[in-house]
């Protein structure tokens, strides 16, 4: 009997375009209240990397009716947790609340999304924090490698920079920058409110309508980036840092989430580099059989979104293993592309995916994330019901075809971050 999972959800669209999704689950008296806004890094003007993330960070720093301290007092006073995020294509707010505090959550959410004021003194303080955080990130070679990789594969687009921005650009951000970004990019038409947990869909809808019904969409078009082009030649970048271990990241531009081959690529990922334990080829060969690394993996489907994500393979190893690790990573990718897969590998990956998808909706926050992708990528509310059949219908030929189509073993980017080592030639 194949496992089926049916998640219930109510969807409503207000007249101003705001979409509300609610999934009830009354197990624990907690609610995850989320707002996702299409105001991510992709909306940054070319000369202002970090603006979207900074605007999001400042949402709870003061609004027309509450200053930052009052907001914190109200929310933290009841033990509510607030987190704000900003990524490639989305920014947003997540609140974890006790059911009894949900009204307060709606009130503060409306203030943050519709009426933030971005006070100058709070901006300066936040700037100092972000600048120090950017400095601190340079101490993490894996992050350094990831940033270099993005700069190369997303060259020429706002996605080439870290979402948080650069020292130079963040230092320049001003209150008018934030106000203007908020005015243009935060609107009901680009916002999705998702609730999961101990909440009544009807009551939630009424509360949201009362608080957000009057929110107007400004007269600005949502900016959509032109098609991002994949590199046409190999790129190698080496960065020497004063560390003991070597971090290697190689790959290229990936795929969009709406790509019809997405389920096939999920199967490919499990076979090549992101299955559980050390069952995938890369961790099995490089870690389990050769003892080269504690961490090594590859992935293409996981980072897909509105824009293409990345195909990347990663290993952290001792510097003397540099060549063997590099050859090992690309060798496994090449082998998959050229030699294909076995029936047994296909079945194993299918078994894994058709059993493990239930883990994606275990908690309220996970349900909210899942509903977001249903809405964003037109997956359909019956996606979880259809999922097992979708995965089961993938054939060996499908996997081999997408491997040849989407994995490039010639024109790829290699980023190496680590200490200088006698035998290692730097580019």
């Amino acid at each position, binding site marked *: 009997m194949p496992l089926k999972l049916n998640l219930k959800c109510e969807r409503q669209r207000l007249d101003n375009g705001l979409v509300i999704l609610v999934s009830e689950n009354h197990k624990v008296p907690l609610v995850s209240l989320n707002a996702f806004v299409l105001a991510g890094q992709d909306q940054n003007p070319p000369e202002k990397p970090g603006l979207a993330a900074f605007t999001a960070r400042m949402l709870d720093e003061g609004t027309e009716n509450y200053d930052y301290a009052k907001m914190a007092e109200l929310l933290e006073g009841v033990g509510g947790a607030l987190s704000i995020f900003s990524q490639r294509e989305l920014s947003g707010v997540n609140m974890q609340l006790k059911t009894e505090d949900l009204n307060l959550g709606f009130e503060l959410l409306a203030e943050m999304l519709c009426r933030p004021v971005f006070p100058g003194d709070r901006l300066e303080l936040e700037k100092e924090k972000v600048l120090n955080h950017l400095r601190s990130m340079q101490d993490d*070679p894996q992050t350094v490698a990831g940033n270099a990789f993005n700069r190369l594969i997303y060259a020429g687009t706002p996605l080439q920079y870290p979402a948080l921005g650069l020292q130079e650009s963040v230092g320049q951000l001003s209150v008018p920058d934030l106000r203007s970004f908020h005015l243009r990019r935060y609107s009901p038409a680009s916002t999705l409110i998702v609730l999961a947990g101990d909440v009544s869909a009807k009551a939630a809808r009424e509360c949201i309508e009362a608080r957000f019904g009057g929110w107007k969409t400004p007269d600005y078009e949502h900016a959509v980036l032109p098609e991002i082009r994949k590199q046409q030649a190999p790129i190698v970048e080496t*960065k020497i840092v004063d560390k003991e271990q070597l971090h290697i990241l190689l790959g290229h531009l990936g795929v969009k989430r709406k790509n019809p081959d997405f389920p096939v690529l999920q199967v490919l990922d499990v076979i090549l580099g992101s299955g559980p334990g050390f069952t995938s080829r890369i961790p099995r060969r490089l870690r389990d059989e050769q003892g080269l690394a504690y961490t090594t993996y590859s992935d293409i489907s996981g980072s897909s979104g509105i824009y293409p994500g990345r195909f990347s393979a990663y290993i952290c190893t001792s510097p003397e293993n540099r060549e063997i690790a590099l050859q090992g990573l690309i060798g496994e990718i090449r082998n998959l592309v050229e030699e294909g897969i076995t029936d047994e590998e296909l079945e194993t990956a299918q078994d894994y995916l058709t059993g493990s998808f239930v883990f994606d909706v*275990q908690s309220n926050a996970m349900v909210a994330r899942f509903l977001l992708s249903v809405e964003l990528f037109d997956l359909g509310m019956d996606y979880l019901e259809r999922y097992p059949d979708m995965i089961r219908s993938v054939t060996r030929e499908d996997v081999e075809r997408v491997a040849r189509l989407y994995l490039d073993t010639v024109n790829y980017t290699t980023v190496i971050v680590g200490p200088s080592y006698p035998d290692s030639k730097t580019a």
Partner: protein
Amino acid sequence: MDYQLNDVTRHRLANGLTVITREDHSVPIVASMIWYRVGSRTERPGITGISHLLEHMMFKGTQRYAKGEIDYITTRHGGSNNAFTSRDYTAYYFTFASDRWHPALEIEADRMENAAFDPEEFELERQVVLEELRMDLDTPWGALRQAVELASFQTHPYRYPIIGTLEDVNEISIEELNAHYRGFYAPNNSTLVLVGDFRQDEVLKEVDTILGRIPSRETPHPEVPAELGQRRENRVEIRKTTHVPRLLWAFPAPSVHDREHYSIEMIDKLLSEGKLARLYRRLVEEERVMSGVMTEFDETQDPYLFFLRGELQPDVDPIRVEKLIDAEIALLLDGPIPESELERARNQCLSQFLADFETPLDQAVQLGLLETLIGFEYWNSYVERIQSVTSHDIRAAADKYLRADASTKGILITEQTSGSTPHAPQA
């Protein structure tokens, strides 16, 4: 609101194995965990890291399952598995969809008595662990934390890193590993925790059949040297290339058995949880000497540590930061804590408590951890005890534990500026 875990049961099998179960039918998932009372606390110089190395070897083959087979079975059943080693315990987990979780019991039974320890696999896995250890020492916090822990105890094994020292991990023999395994991996030294979508009566019968037949064994009770206690303030300074100076302090902390445990948990929240927390407000917002600050506190068998850490803003004199922190701690001793602050900290503790019991695996972790240390009933009195902590209790706990003359003050500062040499992309 119901904070009691009335539906958790404990059974003791004839061989001494403790079995904790909780039915949760809200998602079609079963989490199974096994907890052994062995960790760095039961180690001594020469074999530090042996519990962690043993944990790694438990995936490398038993009489019944060849190397890689446990991962393979997990994948074929669409599940996930992993393990972790800490000071007081080593724990293994599986999560599966509820219609296919039974292999978990067979695997844990076999792992408890039939590990194979193939010498070649052992040498390979030693290399993997050495990579893990080097990776940890290569991070700023990893190196600083090891140094601060070492300085914070004179005699107690909590002074050694859980992952072990490079020397010991290099030297541990397969005979020592086997002896450690034979000593501690016994039904009477472990707890099985099952949470999820199953019927308790059926499951208990199955557990008895599969795990009940393993004979109990006499387990060693290594004498854990009592900590002599520090008589003066320790200072640790690490020099490493870094872009941001980091501060890590450790104060003595109560064990899970101590009455003050709950007061320290409240202090943890009062000092660093949220924007209104005392240290955050003083150090980040008012004085702007740090870009973030947090405190950390765990449940442990013997008294361990209360950590305070954060990243310093550039050009800030660490002595000034030290005085500010000392002053904030002194304020805790100075006068009563306003009721609104107490209420906030209480609510934060309680929200955290609810959130920690959300997914089946979360629940299994919380139940197994506390059962291993003191008994899962700890959670039943948790809310009541947090609610009864008074201003006076907090003063008394701060006076007893947050003492400068018993603290270790660690700092990581830069050795030199990083010599990074970016290279032009190579076609």
